[in-house]
């Protein structure tokens, strides 16, 4: 029997699965889709903006103020240290794919010419602070228009920027290629050489070259291309499918499998079994029938509305369809407004959780002792405008995993060097009404396996 079933194959689900499996658990990961990593930007966000226009330079320095302004935000529960440790944990696992964090956000060009803040970038995305850049895009990539990108970068990055088009089909006869096809083609050194030639043919003596993020899927060829072009090369973000996201997804999935996680994709979790206080099994609709997956613990990492983990019916009723969990953030009448640029409050709806990431009822009661919700399902964040989704995903996933790994099944702060017993408030929820969260009785147990990384 499985120790833990993880539902969801995005950054949160994979992180939790890896942590649990490496600690010796038998883990089964169930997912209907491929996971959200390849829909995102392929970097690790922590916090990019405070409010609509306040750019964050050092995200962890903002946490205290952020928590004051956003008491219901997942970061207020997790705290700066945990989030930093969590993303560092991820960076350490992916040394070839993520540049270690130094506390500061990186600026990253996007396909509309924004300089988007993000915390951990891939090595192919480090902005070299050029005074001039050539922005180059193949005509076959229809989500990247170098002239638009260049003109906007001139303002957003304060560089001299010039756009250039090259015409080099990834496959003969194709007017358009998916980024996946193009990225795979560039892994062939001959194709890459022709590509470099086409670029050199166009560009001038700019300091650096910005290209769409298609420089190799399984192996990033940015270093080789930079050598051929004799200057730094930067990958700019595209709409999905995200090649950088696929690189991370492949690496993490491989690590999960190497750690013994059983991965079952393409089937939907449709329900569960419970003894009242605990979830005893989840139901997977597989091959035309329902199959039960018993587990001692469940990590629920299904995403938010974007993956149908939350749904709103035609009468406006919002539910979480698998466990029918209580949802926070519904008690307002402006969940959706007519201002396109405003954060729509509906997207902050989700589960409110305790320190172990277990969903709570409105009264602060733990819903199921062994069910943990993590990632995009957590209430209180507008992940895309804050640029906070990855930090929330990894940190909450590791928090849930650590709770599961502890003998009590709940998380407590690590013991201090002097071996103080954990403070009793650990089980408190982020909100004031945390009175009786889980079972206070169990809290005092010292966390043995926590912080194992």
């Amino acid at each position: 029997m499985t120790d833990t079933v993880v539902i969801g194959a995005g950054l949160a689900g994979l992180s939790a699965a890896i942590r649990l499996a490496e600690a010796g658990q038998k883990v089964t990961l169930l997912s209907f889709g491929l996971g959200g990593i390849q829909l995102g930007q392929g970097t690790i966000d922590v916090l990019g903006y405070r409010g609509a226009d306040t750019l964050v330079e050092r995200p962890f320095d903002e946490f205290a103020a952020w928590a004051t302004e956003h008491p219901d935000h997942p970061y207020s529960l997790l705290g700066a240290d945990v989030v930093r440790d969590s993303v560092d944990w991820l960076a350490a696992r992916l040394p070839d794919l993520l540049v270690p964090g130094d506390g500061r956000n990186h600026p990253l060009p996007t396909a509309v010419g924004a300089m988007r803040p993000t915390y951990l970038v891939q090595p192919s995305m480090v902005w070299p602070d050029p005074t001039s850049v050539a922005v180059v895009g193949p005509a076959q990539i229809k989500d990247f228009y170098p002239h638009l990108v260049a003109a906007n970068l001139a303002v957003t990055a304060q560089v001299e920027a010039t756009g250039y088009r090259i015409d080099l089909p990834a496959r003969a006869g194709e007017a358009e290629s998916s980024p996946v096809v193009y990225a795979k083609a560039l892994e062939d050194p001959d194709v890459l050489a022709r590509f470099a030639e086409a670029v050199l043919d166009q560009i001038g003596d700019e300091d650096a070259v910005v290209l769409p993020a298609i420089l190799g899927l399984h192996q990033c060829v940015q270093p080789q291309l930079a050598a051929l072009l004799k200057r730094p090369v930067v990958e700019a973000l595209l709409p999905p499918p995200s090649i950088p996201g696929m690189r991370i997804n492949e690496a993490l999935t491989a690590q999960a499998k190497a750690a013994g996680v059983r991965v079952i994709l393409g089937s939907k979790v449709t329900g569960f079994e419970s003894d009242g206080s605990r979830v005893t099994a989840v139901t997977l609709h597989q091959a035309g029938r329902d199959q039960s997956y018993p587990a001692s613990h469940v990590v629920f990492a299904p995403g938010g509305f974007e993956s149908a983990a939350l749904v709103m019916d035609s009468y406006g009723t919002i539910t979480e369809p698998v466990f029918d969990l209580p949802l926070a953030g519904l008690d307002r009448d402006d969940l959706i407004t007519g201002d396109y640029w405003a954060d729509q409050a509906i997207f902050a709806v989700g589960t409110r959780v305790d320190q172990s990431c277990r969903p709570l009822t409105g009264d602060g009661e733990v819903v199921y002792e062994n069910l943990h919700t993590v990632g995009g399902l957590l209430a209180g964040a507008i992940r895309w405008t804050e640029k906070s989704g990855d930090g929330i995903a990894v940190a909450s996933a590791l928090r849930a995993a650590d709770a599961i790994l502890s003998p009590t099944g709940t998380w407590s702060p690590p013991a201090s060097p002097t071996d103080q017993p954990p403070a009793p408030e650990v089980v408190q929820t982020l909100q004031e009404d945390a009175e009786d969260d889980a079972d206070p009785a169990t809290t005092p147990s010292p966390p043995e396996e926590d912080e194992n990384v």
Partner: protein
Amino acid sequence: MRKLATDVVVIGGGSTGIGVLRDCAMRGYRTILLDRADLAQGTSGRFHGLLHSGGRYVVSDPESARECASENSIVTRIQPDAVECTGGLFVTAPGDDPEFGDRFLAGAALTGVHAEEISVSTALAREPRLNPGITRAILVEDGTVDGWQLAWSAAQSAIQHGGQVLTYHKVTQVHHGDGMVNGVTATDLKTGEEVWIECSFVLNCAGPWAGQITHMAGLPPVAVIPGRGSMIAMSHRLVNTVINRCIYPADGDILVPVHTVCVIGTTDHKVDDPDHLAIPRDEVQQMLDAGEELIPGFRQARALHAWAGARPLIKDDRVAASDTRHMSRGMAVIDHSVRDDVRGLITIGGGKLTTYRLMAEHIVDAMEEQLGTSHPCTTAEEMCPGNEAGRNYMITHRLKEREEDRSRSPIICECELMNRDMFVSLLKEHPHANLDDLRRQLRIGMGPCQGGFCSTRAAGIAVEEGVVDAERATGLLKLFLENRWTGTWPILHGDQVRQVGLDNWILQGTLDIAHVPSPTKVETDPVDDPVPSDPVDDPVPSDPVDDPPLHDAVDDPVLADPGEEPVPSDLGDSPPTDPMTESPPTDPVDWKEAT
């Protein structure tokens, strides 16, 4: 100030105004059409897309039924690419009075509307999603029509006959002296330039805005009572035949398959301001309920977008002003020479898009009567340009075209199968257009993702082709997304929430579109028009549904945006008077589209 001279000025670029322009031009009058926005941006673009067979009116309004039957076949013939011959069904839903079907058949026989009762099982075989509880089904020759295609192809025809179209020209005054109209002044919203147009006749086809025009002429008020009709486009065609309830016309009793969607409509509420048409949530619920009665499970289908149009009803003293449904649906013609002793001005209200050509014929006849002239109307005989005889629209046309050209031109809007070449070619014709102007002709951004993927591509291409600079392109992109949202948020639920989540993730998250510089206002011109307030916009066709009203034909819009800018020619200086007699040869500009 730019100066032009012409015989006739038509105010309003909806279907009525465009029909009138075409008719005037074909009868040999030099004619200029003005609209403060783009063609068919108002009511003619904000209906459900029904091309009436006349069935809807066989009981309630036999004369309209007769007109619809004959105009349906004319429009289908002269503008085949705008019309899809879907056929229509009048069905008796559970709870509806089955006897109405008998009255329907009797009315159809009297009015010449082709109608044939078919068995319920035949109807269900044809439309399997129909409520199996229906008790009767009557087949009619309803079609569906794209109001924008209709408007543009008629405008092209008019241009071929010498007519001119000046979009994004807002009329500021209608001048008259000695009891006679002598000119119109307008503002070119793209440049801010004032335009004086000397003319001897003005045809006020401004629909819901017609009262504003007569006000600009300094005449006693004409009471226009805009009737707001709201509609919802559902993703996919849940039916391929127009489905009507076989009842006395009411709200939410029609489902129209148009292009890639089907449209449920409509409601009818009196409003004060045709520029501000909200779509209240309770109206949305009412329409979803109505859909559920026709198609069980309708609420589980995906709602994409909502919009509202304003029916241009002129007040009829015989009914209460708040009951727009029962006001005359026929066309109202106000001859100001009779009413106000001002010759050379006629105001038109009411009408229906289906009968736009016939209305235009009547209006131009009325003008000629006042002028004491008479020329034959030939608009029913000549096909509009861009059409192929007998080749009516089918939803598969674009698929076939893309299969043929996909190795030459990338598909920019996958939902609507619009490729780069189509976009670039229209953009170059209308370099001042905004993305919504292009959308109305190309359908870019009108599918399930509502611009999530295609909008940034459109902006990038516009820059790459050298048509606009990056700042304006970014502004157009943001404006387009704002306008799409206007029609999305009032109906947001179900799978479309998921889509919005993904779109926001991509556009606001990954691409960080909010932090790319753009002009504070995309249009730099002095536009003092209202910005679109509410959900209005969109889809397809025009005409309201129900019973009453409409003609939707005329009108203009609501959005204040950017548009194109015609290049006019100058005429010299003195504002001429007395135009009609001999007009100074000017050669008015023609719009780039001419040719």
